[in-house]
């Protein structure tokens, strides 16, 4: 029999043991009777000789080797009974742990989804991705020629692919369904090492100009939309209004190689100009929009790869930087370097901006968990003290210290398991919510985009680890102390109260320090967000609506687009509720921008140095950007009039000659190339792509003086936004039936650009409040407990004439002392950890005096609030009753 069988069959074994020992006894009795003893005497003698039957049985049970398990089971039963007898204690402890563990798992699963989870593709562990750098500015986006250029270096790479995921619309115009779609270069599937589940995947032959557009769909999409029908390959889907045949299905689990942007449809890069002709120039050197994934050659070490790449990249850069970029701008463009990173979990634009916030969040939740542990440890200490009598009794009855220690640890483990259970449940919802927020960041309305935050072994292992470590942290110290309760305390619990008091106070001090860190963090991010919101961006959001359509989809040529834009403008102008309307190719903070190389007064500028925009008259007026000099564009600035341009202050400062900016000449090359323009106006600097970056030099051109392209309507609404939006949609949508109009308020666009700041603010605030609540609960618990333990002493003081107010002050002072020490320890730690958050803040230093002062005040107030009730209780004690207490 194995020990497991012996454990399972222990009842039967007990019966057999009983029978065996009785048999022995009966034989002894029989022998004694044979020697002439009468029955009663024989039995008495036999009993004497056999010794204690129960001891013998116990010794035999020990011999089974399952003792430890039986004891543990007994401990668990005992612990469950103990917890049930103290429901308040159990509830508080479990809730505290659940909050700590749940918060941790939530953040960890996002961290996991973003930075750890490998792509479900054969080559995952070999994949690398690239980041390009100019000084400290980094980007993960590459142009199509750059990807192809790197792919030609077969000495360095087995395969290089570019991918970008976007939303495309599937179905007939009246019921368009947005679907995440990856545009990929020809070597994409080969790079991933993926083989089709059915049909074929895309190859280099599919990624050429003029070849028929075909699509590969995900297993998930195949199930959802085609119900897994066997004849799906060969059928067509209506993608962006065109019938596209499905040629293959990817294996289950694969939903694209872009993190946070799942893709159910994959088409070649070259398919884009067929599907979305308005995205002109997507294979030119000017458009850097693809994320890179590559499989390095097997023989290369990381260092060799980077070294080889340094040379290769330089060549690629030279070949892909347009010849019109010359001089200093060219030198700067060619100074771009490339770094290689592991791409095991795919390519992502989110990874770089999210790494720091997620790391900070992880650090914060760890603090929250620590605080939770400290709280539970304190509860256990208090409980251990009040159970001192019971434990002392058990020690006196012969229980070993190890045995009691183990039993108390089992109790802690039980609490941890319950806490973890609820924590996992919290994390399940929490990570869903975080994923939704991240989805919103993607700015794709009506799509189920976001991170896949499902549990996996890494999350489960972390859960187990966290639960285990927590148990040890919060359980061991109290258990150790409780199990060491000296025998003398059987009669006197007062003394234990005092000795536990010191440890408990240091735990409270630790808690206060940790809470201070979190509260300061919350304060910093709150002020940071406030700074971003109140920043002078150079525009006033007012009551402005932004609307956009893609008329090019209807097959309009650039020339027809100009007319279309003009007629949309005229039609919207006449609508009720519309105060003024204008057009802009780019609206501020829409997430992206355009830039063109220019020649200003004969000097050529860098590739992405000058931002530029096409606008209609009254654009600045509607967005609230003041005109500082000259004039705004008018309807007269059309193709027949002399070319005009408006620039911002930074442009004037950096690129124009001193003196009057008006009348100076600028020429533009590139996609929107046109001849010399005369500057007719100067506007105030306005934020363009990001609020954190200083406004770049910007050049505005009248929309009628360049080639036509889709524009955003910028509408000054004089009626409720919702009504105006409906009116505009009703008037404009019929002009472009193929694609749905997108309408949003300018204010919403600004808010969504504050995503990171808002996320950090919400996270730190939630964690800060949690920490503060936990600390207050802990302090309150300790003070109540102390007051209860000192009842007799306080009673004596009161009886001897101490005034209640003095007693109250005494208790408050004790609490405040802990808080002050905690703050004194927390402040230097906060100062040391400030480096971690500096880059995430805006407009203030991490050592911001106001924030720190406010945080200290908050903690002091919370401390006084926590101690107020126990202090009052102490002051209003009835001295007579108190002296007779216990």
């Amino acid at each position, binding site marked *: *029999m194995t*020990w497991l069988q*012996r454990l399972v069959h222990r009842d039967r074994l007990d019966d*057999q*043991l009983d*029978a*065996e*020992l009785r*048999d*022995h*006894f*009966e*034989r*002894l009795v*029989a022998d004694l009777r044979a020697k002439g003893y009468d029955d009663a005497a024989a039995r008495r003698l036999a009993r004497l*000789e*056999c*010794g*204690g*039957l129960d*001891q*013998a049985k116990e*010794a*035999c049970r*020990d*011999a*089974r*080797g399952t003792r430890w398990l039986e004891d543990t089971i007994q401990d668990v039963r005992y612990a469950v009974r103990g917890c049930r007898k103290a429901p308040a204690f159990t509830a508080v402890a479990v809730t505290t742990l659940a909050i700590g563990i749940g918060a941790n798992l939530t953040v960890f699963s996002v961290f996991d989804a973003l930075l750890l989870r490998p792509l479900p593709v054969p080559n995952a562990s070999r994949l690398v991705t690239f980041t390009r750098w100019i000084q400290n500015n980094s980007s993960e986006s590459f142009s199509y020629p750059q990807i192809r250029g790197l792919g030609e270096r077969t000495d360095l790479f087995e395969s290089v692919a570019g991918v970008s995921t976007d939303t495309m619309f599937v179905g007939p115009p009246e019921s368009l369904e947005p679907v995440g779609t990856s545009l990929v270069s020809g070597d994409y599937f080969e790079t991933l090492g993926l083989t089709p589940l059915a049909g074929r995947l895309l190859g280099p032959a599919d990624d050429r100009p003029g070849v028929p557009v075909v699509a590969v769909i995900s297993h998930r999409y195949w199930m959802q939309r085609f119900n897994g029908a066997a004849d799906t390959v060969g059928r067509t889907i209506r993608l962006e209004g065109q019938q596209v045949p499905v040629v293959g299905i990817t294996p289950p689990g694969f939903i694209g190689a872009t993190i946070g942007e799942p893709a159910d449809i994959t088409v070649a890069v070259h398919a884009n100009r067929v599907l979305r002709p308005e995205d002109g120039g997507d294979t030119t050197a000017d458009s850097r929009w693809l994320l890179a994934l590559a499989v390095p050659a097997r023989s290369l070490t990381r260092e060799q790869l980077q070294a080889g790449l340094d040379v290769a990249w330089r060549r690629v850069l030279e070949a892909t930087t347009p010849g019109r970029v010359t001089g200093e701008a060219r030198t700067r463009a060619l100074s771009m370097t490339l770094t290689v990173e592991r791409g095991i979990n795919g390519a992502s634009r989110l990874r770089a901006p999210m790494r720091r916030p997620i790391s900070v969040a992880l650090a914060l939740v760890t603090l929250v968990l620590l605080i939770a542990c400290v709280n539970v440890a304190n509860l256990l200490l208090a409980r251990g003290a009040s159970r001192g009598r019971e434990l002392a009794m058990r020690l006196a009855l012969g229980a070993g210290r190890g045995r009691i220690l183990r039993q108390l640890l089992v109790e802690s483990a039980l609490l941890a398991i319950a806490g973890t259970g609820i924590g996992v449940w919290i994390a399940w919802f929490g990570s869903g919510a975080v994923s939704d927020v991240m989805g919103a960041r993607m700015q794709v309305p009506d799509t189920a985009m976001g991170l896949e935050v499902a549990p996996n072994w890494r999350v489960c292992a972390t859960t187990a680890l966290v639960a285990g470590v927590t148990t040890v942290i919060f359980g061991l110290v109290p258990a150790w102390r409780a199990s060491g309760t000296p025998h003398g305390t059987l009669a006197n619990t007062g003394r234990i109260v005092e000795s536990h008091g010191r440890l408990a106070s240091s735990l409270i001090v630790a808690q206060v320090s940790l809470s201070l860190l979190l509260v300061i963090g919350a304060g910093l991010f709150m002020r940071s967000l406030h700074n971003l919101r109140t920043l002078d961006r150079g525009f006033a959001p007012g009551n402005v609506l932004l609307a956009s359509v893609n008329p090019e989809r209807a097959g309009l040529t650039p020339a027809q687009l100009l007319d279309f834009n003009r007629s949309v403008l005229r039609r919207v102008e006449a609508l009720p509720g519309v105060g003024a309307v204008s057009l802009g190719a780019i609206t501020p903070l829409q997430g992206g921008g355009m830039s063109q190389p220019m020649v200003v007064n004969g000097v050529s500028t860098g590739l992405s140095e000058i931002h530029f925009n096409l606008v209609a008259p009254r654009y600045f007026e509607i967005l609230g950007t003041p005109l500082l000099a000259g004039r705004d564009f008018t309807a007269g600035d059309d193709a027949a009039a002399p070319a005009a341009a408006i620039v911002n202050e930074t442009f004037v400062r950096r690129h124009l000659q001193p003196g009057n900016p008006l009348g100076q000449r600028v020429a533009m090359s590139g996609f929107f190339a046109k001849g010399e323009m005369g500057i007719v106006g100067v506007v105030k600097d306005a934020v363009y792509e990001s609020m954190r970056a200083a406004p770049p030099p910007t050049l505005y051109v009248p929309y009628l003086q360049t080639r036509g392209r889709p524009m955003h309507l910028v509408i000054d609404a004089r009626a409720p936004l919702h009504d105006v939006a409906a009116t505009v949609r009703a008037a404009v949508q019929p002009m472009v039936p193929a694609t749905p109009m997108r309408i949003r308020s300018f204010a919403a666009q600004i808010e969504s650009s504050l995503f990171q700041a808002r996320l950090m603010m919400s996270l730190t605030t939630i964690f800060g409040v949690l920490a503060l609540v936990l600390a207050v609960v802990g302090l309150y618990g300790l003070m109540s407990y102390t007051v209860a333990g000192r009842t007799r002493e306080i009673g004596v003081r009161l009886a001897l004439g101490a005034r209640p107010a003095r007693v109250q002050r005494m208790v408050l002072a004790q609490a405040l002392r802990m808080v002050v020490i905690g703050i004194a320890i927390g402040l230097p730690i906060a100062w040391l950890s400030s480096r971690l958050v500096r880059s995430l803040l805006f407009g203030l230093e991490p050592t911001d005096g106001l924030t720190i002062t406010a945080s200290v005040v908050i903690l002091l107030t919370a401390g006084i609030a926590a101690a107020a009730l126990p202090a009052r209780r102490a002051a209003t004690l009835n001295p007579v009753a108190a002296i007779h207490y216990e």
Partner: protein
Amino acid sequence: MSTRAKPDLPQGTLDLLVLQVVALEPLHGYAIAQRLKQMSRDVVQVTQGTLYPALHRLENRGLLAAEWKSSDTGRDAKFYRLTRKGRTHLEVETANWERLTGAIATILNAAKGEAS
């Protein structure tokens, strides 16, 4: 009963004795105790509290096998028998024991010789 103090069995020797007794024929616990007592001329007397745990330990280690069989009393009794593994163990341990006691005897005798 003898009033003479019974020497304690050295650690581990009870196992050896039990295996030796059972090696001759399968026996139940009481018979094992009786045999030990008789063969040692009352020197080795084991109580239930030491004998049965030892039997169970040996059974769990696979050195003994047990079987419930009907016995002379009409009740079923648990008979222990030596397994092959037990026999090997017995041989090895017996050899060890003899070497050890031989060595101890030599030392004691030599000490006696020196003392005289």
